[in-house]
């Protein structure tokens, strides 16, 4: 009995303390551990949440809750008429964080911008090889080919010279790998012989400064009082790393955290009726699709692809595979991205007409493979189940489907093959909110034999998206992309399946939290009500 009483007392004491502390501390039950704190070294959202999204700024940023580009550390920028030079005017009076090890002697300036990119692209830079750096995103966004040089015009002006006009470049500058680090801090660490601390004890200009990290357990931040946009409403931010989704929910209920990501789909119903939980939701920046191989018979015939599009009961897939946490997709880009063409009409679910069209195209007794991914992804939580539903749908129109799967790495590799048999289930999550990041990456002629799993090269479509890259005016670009989506739908290289819906359970006392369309978790601007 004594034991129980002691436990009770201890429990009560802890609860009382955390209630007192919650006045200004926001606790986020994050799903995993960051790989490090230098965002350019990594590609995982969990790592960006812990680094770039709280500690750093970029030259330009996404307005919270949208994919719109707004000024960040650059107050303004100019693009040359030929679209190959971008000149950024930098914000003055921005201060880097201080820590026990580092006190900045100067404000943020052009040297920091040049350092932040130079270390990723220039092999001579001492930081190029630190922490086994491979600069994945810098490479994935083709920055080495794209950026010819970066010049310091003066202390507060930086010019990027590109090798070709590339309108999505400005969106790249808002990505996590483009976070601006302190050159002064890096130089100090280099001198002390501890460059790896740049990746362990980050110093940025962002709304929160890093306080400490206990591996796999807790990350602590405190609000930056000198933040150039004004100090955050909360004083402290804590990430309590909690890998299990059900446990995160328990912690949210018990008041041990205020915000949690990635709820268990099975818990959604309970959350909706739970008064301790405010369940927010928004469409994710992704698309799940079935890519036919348009270079292989009979999928080289547009009628066959259209017919199979009509054979798919998308609503059943949304209900069964997504358990309601998804919406049917009609375009290859999600509705949260600008230039999404809502006028496009999806193929209706009409098995009879589909069968008729197949017969007219001379396709009878068709047997095909559908590839099911072996992993869970937001855009496809259960590819095996989805493939089974497609198998039933296609059987209705007389098409015999065999479901195949490979180990994930193997799957990605084999599905690139131009001569591959069958249709592949796959998807994409946007990197920078630019339509180009979906349309050119996944459907451009350059990507055939690579990320273009439909192996689809259409002159009209490719002409539109190539032109859109060279125009820097967004309205004009939007018009081109809208047109490209019409061509896409008509040609039907994919059956677009779904966009997922992202759920974020938060406590009712959390104010002004916004779901980030990029899937990030951003706590600047979020408050706690008493």
């Amino acid at each position, binding site marked *: 009995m004594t034991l*129980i009483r002691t*436990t009770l007392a*201890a*429990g*009560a*004491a*802890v*609860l009382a*303390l*955390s209630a007192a*502390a919650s006045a200004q*501390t926001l*606790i986020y039950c994050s799903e*995993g551990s960051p*790989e*490090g704190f230098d965002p350019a*070294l990594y*590609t995982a959202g969990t790592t960006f949440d812990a680094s770039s999204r709280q500690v750093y700024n970029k030259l330009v940023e996404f307005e919270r809750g949208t994919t719109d580009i707004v000024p960040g550390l650059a107050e303004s920028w100019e693009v040359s008429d030929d679209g190959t030079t971008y000149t950024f005017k930098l914000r003055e009076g921005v201060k880097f964080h201080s820590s026990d090890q580092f006190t900045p002697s100067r404000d943020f300036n052009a040297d920091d911008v040049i350092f932040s990119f130079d270390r990723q692209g220039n092999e001579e830079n001492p930081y190029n090889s630190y*922490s*086994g750096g*491979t600069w*994945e995103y810098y*490479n*994935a966004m083709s920055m080495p080919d794209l950026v010819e040089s970066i010049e310091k015009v003066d202390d507060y002006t930086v010019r990027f010279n590109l090798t070709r006009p590339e309108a999505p470049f400005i969106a790249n500058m808002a990505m996590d790998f483009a976070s601006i680090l302190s050159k002064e801090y890096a130089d100090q660490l280099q001198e002390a012989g501890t460059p*790896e601390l740049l*990746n362990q004890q980050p110093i940025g200009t962002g709304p929160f400064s890093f*306080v*400490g990290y*206990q*591996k*796999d*357990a*807790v990350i*602590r931040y405190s609000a930056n009082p000198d933040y150039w946009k004004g100090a955050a409403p909360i004083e402290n931010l*804590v990430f*309590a*790393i*909690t*890998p*299990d989704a*059900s*446990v995160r929910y*328990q*912690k949210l*209920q*018990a008041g*041990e955290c205020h915000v949690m990501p990635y709820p268990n789909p099975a818990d959604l119903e309970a959350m909706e009726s739970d008064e301790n939980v405010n369940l927010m939701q928004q469409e994710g920046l992704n698309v799940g699709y079935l890519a036919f191989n348009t270079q292989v018979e009979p999928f080289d015939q547009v009628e066959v692809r259209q017919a199979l599009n009509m054979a798919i009961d998308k609503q059943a897939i949304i209900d069964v595979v997504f358990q309601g946490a998804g919406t049917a997709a009609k375009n290859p880009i999600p509705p949260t991205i600008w230039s999404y063409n809502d006028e496009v009409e999806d193929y209706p679910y009409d098995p009879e007409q589909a069968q008729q069209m197949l017969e007219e195209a001379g396709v009878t007794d068709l047997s095909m493979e559908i590839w099911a991914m072996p992993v869970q992804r937001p855009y496809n939580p259960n590819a095996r189940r989805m493939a089974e539903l497609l198998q039933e749908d296609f059987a209705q129109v007389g098409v015999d489907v065999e479901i195949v799967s490979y*180990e*994930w*790495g*193997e799957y*990605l*590799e084999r599905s*690139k093959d131009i001569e591959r048999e069958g249709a592949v289930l*796959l*998807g*994409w*999550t946007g990197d920078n909110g630019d339509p180009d990041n979906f349309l050119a990456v996944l459907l451009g002629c350059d990507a055939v034999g*690579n*990320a273009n799993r439909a192996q689809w090269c259409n002159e009209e479509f490719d002409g539109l998206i190539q032109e859109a890259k060279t125009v820097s005016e967004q309205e004009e670009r939007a018009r081109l992309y809208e047109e490209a989506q019409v061509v896409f739908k008509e040609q039907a290289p994919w059956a677009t399946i779904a966009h997922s819906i992202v759920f974020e359970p938060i406590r009712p006392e959390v104010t002004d939290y916004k779901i980030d369309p990029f899937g990030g978790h951003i706590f600047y601007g979020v408050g706690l009500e008493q």
Partner: protein
Amino acid sequence: MLRFVLSRLLTFVPTFFGVTLVSFAFIRLLPGDPIQLLAGERGVSEARYNELAEQFGFDAPIWKQYIDYLIGIFQGDLGTSFVTKRPVLDEFMALFPATLELSICAITLAILIGIPAGVIAAVNRGKFFDQALMTTALVGYSMPIFWWALLLIIVFSSGLGWTPVSGRMSLMYFIDGPTGFMTIDALLSGEEGAFKSAVSHLILPTIVLATIPLAIIARQTRSAMLEVLGEDYVRTARAKGLAPLRVNGMHALRNALIPVVTVIGLSVGTLLAGAILTETIFSWPGIGKWMVDSIFRRDYQAVQGGLLIIAVIVMIVNLTVDILYGLINPKIRNR
């Protein structure tokens, strides 16, 4: 005795090399290329692939990679994690104290309850106590850990609010002490309430992790006791008129402990490596979760390094058990 210990130590050498080979081969035999997995849907160009393969040393012939790995081990270098880019040994040592602390608590709880429960059951063979204890043990042994842990959390943390849901320490405290054992560091920090918080965080994970070893130890103790209780010397002791407690406690239990010690030794191995579920559910920052994550990412260096250290620890524990065994049972020592 010395000869016995030495001969045991000699078997260490081939086992050690076997472990290095198995740990090296295991992760490479799994299908899946780490570079492809790292790139994901984004993909990686061939030129870039070759560049990365060279950087990580994957382009070298497999035997050379193994030799380099062995050379590294003898220089105390287990390589660098492919994912976090930090030395594997540092990563391991940052997490290991958490696993060790939890394992020690769990095995202590299992021993403290399991052995007396087994003895009581054996002494009361066939009676109510025996049946109740052994049924409970069977349930404990067969219970899905995931379910059991969530049940405890829902009842004691969310429902009654007696214990925290997960983690090692209240977020009020920022304790990053010298030992890595949260309870000890909390005491050393002198912060009021920190020690209580550390203990309250330990309660549920300890119970969950102790459940299976407790059931095994209780059942093992019971059957070993039953065997010993039928021996002549126990009957003799009883006939001499010794008190039942003395007979059961001193004469019978001491001999019954021999197989129990083996079981405990084996449990330590499972506890250290097998606390994955418990660690995941309770957000306990230990090596079980780390190993699983590393396997999924095909983080070769982390997996082979982690496996090697765990295997060596298990080998040392087994060696200690063997020696203990010799101490308890002279028959084995002299064989």
